[in-house]
């Protein structure tokens, strides 16, 4: 190995070693996001109820994940809507929640928890809407994250 090659190898090895040494103190630059998912009674993406009676109890599971880069305080708002209910990634459903599930998650944390529900209104194409709200430390209030999910249900009177 001639001297030039040796110097080049030394420079490369030095740069890699320095990068490895300072990598723990370099700021993380990843994308920050939250996750919301609704799971069926078996805690899987399957087996969702399609027809329930008014007042009939059933259980679903909610998955929430935090990749915001810091601890977050969430609220999962469960709302009972219809086909006409308006909801989007920027506007939450203008309905009172039938259930509010608060939880705190550390960064890169996730959880699955059960929700016991019962529909109060009979009809075809009723919607069970789940919205994820997040606490804003600056304003000391919860804000809609734009994440939502829904389950379509035919609710019978019997």
């Amino acid at each position, binding site marked *: 190995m001639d*001297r030039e090659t*040796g*110097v080049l190898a*030394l*420079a490369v*090895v*030095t740069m890699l*070693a*320095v990068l490895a*040494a*300072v*990598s*723990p*103190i370099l700021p993380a630059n990843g994308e920050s996001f939250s996750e919301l998912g609704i799971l069926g009674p078996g805690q899987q993406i399957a087996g969702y109820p399609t027809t329930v009676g008014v007042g009939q109890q059933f259980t679903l599971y909610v998955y929430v994940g935090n990749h915001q880069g*810091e*601890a*977050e*305080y969430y609220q999962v708002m469960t709302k009972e809507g219809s086909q006409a209910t308006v909801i989007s990634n920027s506007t939450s459903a203008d309905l009172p929640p039938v259930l509010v*599930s*608060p*939880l*705190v*998650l*550390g*960064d890169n*944390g996730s959880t699955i928890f059960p929700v016991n529900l019962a529909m109060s209104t009979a009809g075809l194409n009723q919607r069970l809407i789940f919205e994820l709200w997040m*606490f804003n*430390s600056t304003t*000391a209030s919860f804000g809609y994250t734009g994440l939502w999910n829904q389950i379509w249900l035919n609710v019978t009177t019997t």
Partner: protein
Amino acid sequence: MHRPECPYQAWGLGASPMKVVLIVVITALLLTAEPQVTSAASQATFGGTSLAVQSAFIAVQTAGKDGGNITSLVAELNGALALVQKASAENSSNPSQASVDLQSALVIAQQVQSAAATVGRQGISTRQVQFDFSVASAVVIMGVAVALYVYGDRIYRRLWLRVYGDHVVREVG
């Protein structure tokens, strides 16, 4: 007229200082005694506990940003939230238990907020140590690299001489 000195005289209908004092004491006790019927936890109590949880969360979030290990604090906060939910569910059926649960949640939130400050300070300290170690490591690596560049040839020759210096070259065949 001599009045008989009966020990029960004070309980009679006639006005006496002892009787007046007794009536005043009983009235005062009746007025100040707390009602035994437990009232449901008010919205203000729920609001106060929620605010305490929010404050505790802000403290935990700050401690996490400072590099502290907030895993146990997050678990405790979730415990407090579960108690608030339980209290909300049972407030109409079991108000006394709801009040107890709310009080427990409040205590947990206050403890978490207090502990978060310590965890945050530990995080800052750990982060500083890590920063110092990383910078020192980088400086040492670069120093070794410069030393190798300047003295590398000399060091290599000396090492070669130390390893092969005793070797004797013999004629083969």
